[in-house]
């Protein structure tokens, strides 16, 4: 990690905290799954924290993001609260989506998160449209479209890149290349070069180490500022790694990736540990302070989990509400 000036203590600490918050959220979510307290299953963001945080810390609250099936990290990084998130994961009324969306559809419009998406690549158009909308309505918002390496196979991306480039839209396509599409190494199912694919549409493309929150944040700040000025769109490929299986139930994964590979990434390239070490070495915080931050966040997360476990489900008559805006109960309407 490149040495940095210490002028940004507050920013650094916020980034560190946000990464820890994501990790804590995921550890608890995983625990909820393992203890059979969570309905369905979910995809852990652990290992990729520097991507979401590095990028979202470069955004304003009113800037928009679109997220993926592996969306908890983006949601936390864009400003969401633990309680409403855990409530959503458990299908409770106080969840961000009143329990109707769950992990794969968590959205938090109050902080510009237009939502996770269970269709791989499904939000590429949405992000591009949000950028078009902002430009047309005279807003200065930038939209970041998060997606995985596997999602680059979806034709939709090429369609919207073409339009984003033609219309110079303030959108940044952020590809989190964690090397895998479910249970397959993406190298085996992706030909050529991903950055070249964006460049072929005349889109400026960058690669960055997705485990280095400062590198990510630096690049994101520059590109966000330029996109805001109308110099977009941009593409970023962020090399990263997911620590867990494809989803929480994907336990035996030797057949597609080795334990060695996993522990190598965890040991040597953990974005939180490395950033913590750097913060210490730069004298921004002490080891004790880091422990205190961790403890506080862990406690927060656990309290939120308990809160969510105790919270109520939506009442049965909610089932046909929110099908249509402006219609109280859809079944009485259609």
């Amino acid at each position, binding site marked *: 990690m490149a040495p940095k000036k210490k002028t940004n203590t507050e920013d650094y600490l916020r980034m560190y905290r946000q990464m820890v918050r994501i990790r804590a959220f995921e550890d608890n979510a995983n625990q909820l799954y393992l203890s059979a307290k969570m309905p369905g299953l979910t995809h852990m963001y652990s290992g990729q924290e520097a991507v979401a945080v590095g990028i979202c810390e470069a955004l304003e609250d009113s800037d928009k993001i679109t997220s993926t099936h592996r969306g908890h990290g983006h949601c936390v990084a864009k400003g969401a609260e633990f309680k409403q998130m855990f409530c959503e994961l458990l299908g409770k009324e106080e969840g961000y989506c009143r329990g*109707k969306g769950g992990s794969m559809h968590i959205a938090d419009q109050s902080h510009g998160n237009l939502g996770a998406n269970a269709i791989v690549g499904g939000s590429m158009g949405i992000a591009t449209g*949000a950028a078009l909308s902002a430009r047309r309505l005279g807003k200065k918002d930038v939209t970041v479209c998060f997606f995985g390496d596997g999602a680059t196979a979806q034709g939709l991306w090429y369609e919207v890149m073409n339009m984003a480039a033609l219309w110079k839209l303030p959108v940044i396509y952020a590809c989190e290349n964690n090397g895998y599409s479910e249970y397959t190494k993406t190298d085996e199912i992706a030909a050529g070069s991903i950055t070249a694919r964006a460049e072929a549409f005349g889109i400026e493309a960058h690669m960055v180490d997705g485990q280095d929150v400062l590198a990510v944040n630096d690049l994101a700040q520059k590109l966000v500022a330029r996109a805001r000025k109308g110099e977009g769109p941009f593409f970023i490929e962020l090399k990263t790694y997911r620590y867990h299986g494809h989803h929480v139930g994907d336990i035996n994964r030797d057949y597609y990736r080795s334990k060695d590979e996993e522990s190598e990434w965890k040991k040597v390239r953990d974005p939180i540990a490395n950033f913590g070490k750097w913060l210490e070495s730069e004298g921004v915080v002490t080891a004790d302070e880091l422990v205190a931050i961790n403890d506080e966040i862990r406690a927060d997360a656990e309290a939120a989990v308990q809160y969510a476990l105790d919270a109520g489900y939506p009442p049965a008559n909610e089932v046909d509400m929110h099908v249509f805006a402006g219609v109280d109960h859809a079944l009485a309407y259609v």
Partner: protein
Amino acid sequence: MTREITLSKAVNEAIAEEMRRDETIFLIGEDVAEAGTPFKVLSGLVEEFGTDRVIDTPIAEPGFMGIAVGAAMTGSRPIVDLMFGDFIFLVMDQLCNQAAKTHYMSGGKLSVPLVLRTNLGATRRSAAQHSQSLHALVAHIPGLKVALPSSAYEAKGLMKTAIRDDNPVVIFEDKLMYNDKAPVPEEEYLIPFGEANVMRQGRDVTLIGTSSMVQVCQKAAEILEKEGISAEVIDPRTIVPLDEETILNSVRKTSRAIVVDEGHQNFGITGEIASRISEKAFYHLDAPVQRMGAMDVPVPFSPALEDITVPTPEGVADRARLICRGELVHAA
């Protein structure tokens, strides 16, 4: 004041009026700007509103549909132009997995106020990939409203309502009707969704026709009238929401019904409406409810074949005669 204008002009007026009223509305699609679409429905709009609000796209239906969804979620009110109804297959994911579900999945926090305007209708010699009437597919998906204008008057009033609706609305225009004129008031009006139009009162049989089939039912009613059979003709105007009450009240009166629609018959519109009538007007029926959809074959190119795939006034009148005389009843 009321003048006669074409359906095409009616759509154009509706969109222009709404775009003047609300800056957040924009049009997006292929050849919508200078060309004003191949059917010339949107001619003149780019001159008034500029290319910032009348946006020509590449040939990328899933892409611009997705873009519209995102724009709608963030303060805009896009009108998407899909050149042929047959291309709806290309936008199904963005329409049905995204637009239709976003409001619900977000617990009401996000909404997607967009209009997808496209068309339906065969007998234009356009063959199997440019002649389909695919409104049933969309009607099956919760979260989408579906309007089927049957004349210039409906086209204008329903379009304006659609644009002001806070939900995704799909409007299918009959492409063979673009040049058909009908009386349309100069004054502003809207047609509320879910209110069927009783086009003609009758005693003996209710003909429920959608879109292009409303005229077919009207003509059938004229044929029948000469023979002393009095047909009531109903145009539901929207199928989601569906004005069940008006239909049921009519059938409770006439005791007989024929549902006529240009979509394929199997697993389509006619089954839904017929089964609701059969269930909810059970004791009032003197004859089985009849369904007349398009033939369950891909639309053939040859004029010799294409014309027999779609219900005709004579065909509807024949069927009405049979049920009014009780001939189909005893077989069942």
